[in-house]
């Protein structure tokens, strides 16, 4: 699903590109594209130079993205998992997942 433009996003493309006359709603509709970095830095967008609310929003979204990097190794699997894997390997589980694939693996 693509973001639907509406309201003041019907402005001529050059106006929308430099943020002139852009509402917060219109700016926020373009955030997925602007934050991908493919059209330059979002921080250079003219709307942010005059809108503290959207600047705070972008700061929050970037902060969440940065914090997410700390989640890579959040959870420790139970100590019982390796013995199960080892047992399955010893029974040939490493060679075939069985006709039902994952269904051949059961939790005890």
């Amino acid at each position, binding site marked *: 699903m693509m973001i639907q433009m509406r309201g003041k996003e019907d402005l001529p493309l050059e106006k929308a590109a430099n943020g002139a006359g852009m509402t917060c709603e219109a700016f926020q509709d373009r955030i997925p594209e602007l934050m991908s970095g493919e059209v330059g830095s979002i921080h250079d967008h003219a709307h942010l130079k005059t809108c503290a609310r959207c600047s705070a929003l972008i700061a929050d979204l970037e*902060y969440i993205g940065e914090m997410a990097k700390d*989640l890579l190794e959040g959870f420790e699997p139970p100590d019982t998992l390796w013995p*199960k894997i080892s047992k399955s390997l010893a029974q040939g589980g490493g060679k075939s997942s069985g006709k039902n694939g994952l269904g051949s693996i059961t939790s005890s």
Partner: protein
Amino acid sequence: MSVGQTQPKPTSQHMRRNPPIPGEAEAILAAQAGDTRSFEFLYALHKRRVYSLCLRMLSNVAEAEDLTQEAFLQLYRKIGTFRGDSAFSTWLHRLAVNVVLMHLRKKGLPQVSLEETLEPSQDDGPRRDIGARDIVLSGSIDRVTLERAVENLPPGYRLVFVLHDVEGYEHNEIAGMLDCSIGNSKSQLHKARMKLRDLLHSGQRKEVA
């Protein structure tokens, strides 16, 4: 071409999150030759990351354990095909992602249909930030709080958020994995972050009250 002679090719963001681990290259070679102790060493190195990936994508402990097990069994079967064209961890994590996505597709339930999970109901969606200004989050959120908020994301939002922001996949890679457009991936990531922001702000307001 042996594993020890190759250099990872850092072509995307997630590869930069997977630096070489001491002893890993030797363990890979030994495991490829059938040494089960080396395979156990590889399990110990990567179990947290693989299990965390499964748990976040599924939000179900029993399923996460089963799929972590399946991922390492598949690793055992396929490790001989690893040629070092990417970092081992990148290769393994992609294998684990595929195991989870295969599982979700097999389940065929509405909440895990990729088509449907990419479109959570309006009630689950994030609100716009047009009204009164909130307190900014910067510096105020710890890992546990964010983890809890991620758990509460609608499944489709959570999937794209975990793949992009946590695991470091690019939108074009996610689009390929989920069989959706790149624009859809970008849109869902934005909605996920907005929803997280809502959840985190709600938590802050509760703390203040």
